[in-house]
């Protein structure tokens, strides 16, 4: 039913000719570093910012010219935009009151929403008497009570502490599924994007980098930007050259390649290789390809993060379990060409994703 497609061409080019369509009932995440234009894009959809070029459609109808109230959507702001002089109840009902919804209907919706969000006890309080999480819930309730089919969220979790954020992530996701909302969610946090989105759009400098499901973005990043933006710890990158069936990294590290793996790479003079932290395996007696010096160790309990210096870059390896390793130790590791993604150094475009990802996933399960 809902099919939004748009292409913008802003004069200042904050948003540069973006075209995409969002399905009904989808949790769509816009992610990008600050200043990438994701909030601007969201505000354009909401109608708070003018669209300088292109067409915005909802339900196959052009809505470019409509004011925000006629677009039939709700929005949650980063700072929640609660009215400080109104109680929680008045805050939630503000929109319905403005639209002159019937009193009985208002109360019915209020009761429903409040019970769903667990705010029954707080109705008579003012926003300043609420904790961050409670305010967040009121802001959500306000958008739920409007019963608009589209909900826009602009970094709603960025003001919460880490524990609460994890909790609210789940709650928002559940709410969206329960109500069948079409959600457009803006965040700069790639973890939020990965964990919540049905589909993710990575935005940088007002340009689409990649649109796809979280796992696709992780396994087959379209370019260097997506590769380094998605995933934590960051993907390990290094400039590399192909010499005699061997991949030679900047610092002289050599990785042996299969013949068929090198074929697509032969025509590329400048390569950048990327390998995920979990794919730098601890070397065993029979399978050790390299020995690297550890410059930092982070013990997380269930896993151990090791940092190596490779050329100009710092590489991180994520090993499951607890490893007793000291800074300065020479550690055997196993690097396999199967796990390496290759990018064109100049354009940043993906040449070949890591082929072994799929298998690894299955093994991992």
């Amino acid at each position: 039913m809902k099919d939004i497609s748009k292409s913008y061409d802003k004069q200042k080019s904050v948003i540069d000719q973006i075209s995409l369509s969002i399905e009904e009932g989808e949790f769509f995440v816009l992610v990008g570093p600050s200043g990438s234009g994701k909030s601007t894009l969201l505000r354009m959809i909401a109608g708070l910012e003018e669209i300088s070029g292109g067409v915005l459609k909802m339900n196959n109808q052009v809505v470019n010219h409509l004011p925000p109230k006629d677009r039939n959507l709700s929005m949650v702001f980063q700072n929640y935009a609660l009215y400080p002089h109104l109680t929680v109840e008045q805050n939630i009902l503000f929109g319905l009151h403005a639209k002159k919804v019937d009193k009985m209907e208002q109360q019915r919706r209020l009761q429903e929403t409040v019970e769903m969000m667990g705010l029954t006890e707080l109705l008579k309080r003012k926003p300043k008497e609420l904790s961050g999480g409670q305010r967040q819930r009121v802001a959500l309730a306000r958008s739920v009570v409007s019963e608009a089919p589209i909900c826009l969220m602009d970094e709603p979790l960025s003001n919460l502490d880490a524990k609460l954020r994890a909790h609210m992530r789940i709650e928002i996701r559940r709410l969206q599924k329960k109500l069948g909302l079409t959600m457009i969610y803006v965040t700069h946090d790639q973890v939020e994007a990965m964990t919540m989105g049905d589909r993710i759009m990575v935005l940088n400098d007002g340009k689409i980098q990649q649109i796809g499901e979280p796992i696709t973005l992780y396994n087959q990043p379209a370019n260097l930007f997506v590769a380094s933006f998605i995933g934590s710890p960051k993907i390990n990158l290094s400039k590399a050259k192909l010499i005699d069936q061997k991949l030679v990294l900047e610092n002289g590290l050599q990785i042996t390649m299969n013949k068929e793996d090198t074929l697509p790479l032969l025509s590329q003079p400048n390569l950048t290789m990327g390998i995920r932290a979990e794919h730098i395996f601890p070397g065993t007696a029979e399978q050790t390809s390299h020995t690297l010096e550890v410059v930092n160790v982070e013990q997380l309990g269930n896993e151990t993060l090791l940092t190596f210096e490779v050329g100009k870059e710092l590489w991180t390896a994520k090993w499951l379990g607890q490893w007793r390793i000291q800074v300065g130790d020479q550690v055997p590791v196993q690097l396999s060409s199967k796990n390496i993604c290759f990018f064109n150094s100049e354009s940043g475009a993906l040449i070949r994703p890591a082929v072994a990802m799929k298998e690894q996933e299955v093994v991992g399960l």
Partner: protein
Amino acid sequence: MSEIAYQQEVQHSVDFLKEKKKQRLQHLFKGMLFLFPSILLFSVFLFYPLGKTIYLSFFLTDNRGEPTIFVGMENYLEIFKSPIFLQSLKSTLLFAIYTVPGSIIVSLFLAILANEKLRGIGVFRTVFSSSMGISVAAASVFWMFLFHPTIGWLNTIVKAFGFEPIGWLTDPNWALFSVSVSTIWMNVGFTFLILLGGLQSIDSYLYESADIDGAGYFYKLRRITIPMLSPTLFFVLTVTLINAFQTFGQVDMLTRGGPQNETNLIVYSIYQEAFMNYQYGTASAQAIILFVIILVLTIIQFKLGERKVHYQ
């Protein structure tokens, strides 16, 4: 062993107390040092005159202001019997009723207009706030020209509409109104600027959120702007009210209290009593009454206001 330990503890706690006391004294001394300039200035220009005024209000004085005969509350009883003082109280009250809401409504209207993001709005903001930079004397002079019975613009306009010219400053029915109008004009610059500042500090997210909720312009004005502006409005209300009770300059320039004492506001009345009639005793008594009136009004305002005002 334990006894020794105990003794040591006692020793320590005594030391701590002494140390704390010393620190507190030092704090007090430093605080006083910082306060000293303002205490000095306030004493010379505020506390001493206030005390002296109260003292004088119980005496009759000679024409140099020296107290001669102690009369107790006689001065107070006397002025409350005086029709001129009662008239000036009434005029002052009316004046406050005209100018306070007038100033606030006009400047709120202008501030809301000037808060729109339009091209060239800076010019209007400057124009609207410019009366703040004009002294009471200068403003009074050109209002005097506007009010002039034969060559004034106001009467030219009145005549153009075919009405009888009005004696703006000479007709007892119009004089207070005319002074009020010029006072509102003088107040607007300051109140406009404060209210505009208040409007601009309201978070734009609130309006955006209301836009999405589908609130109309006047609904937003009533439910968001006015409540969010209430602390500023309250401040402006207090200041203009106090100013209204202390008005002197424009009365002196425009009407000199006339006609028939219609515009003889209380401060002007005090001035006349003291420096024209040389009745320092009764003038002091009037000044004390003015002080009490303003004090009581401000207390009432704060008591009532605090319930209605939403501080962030």
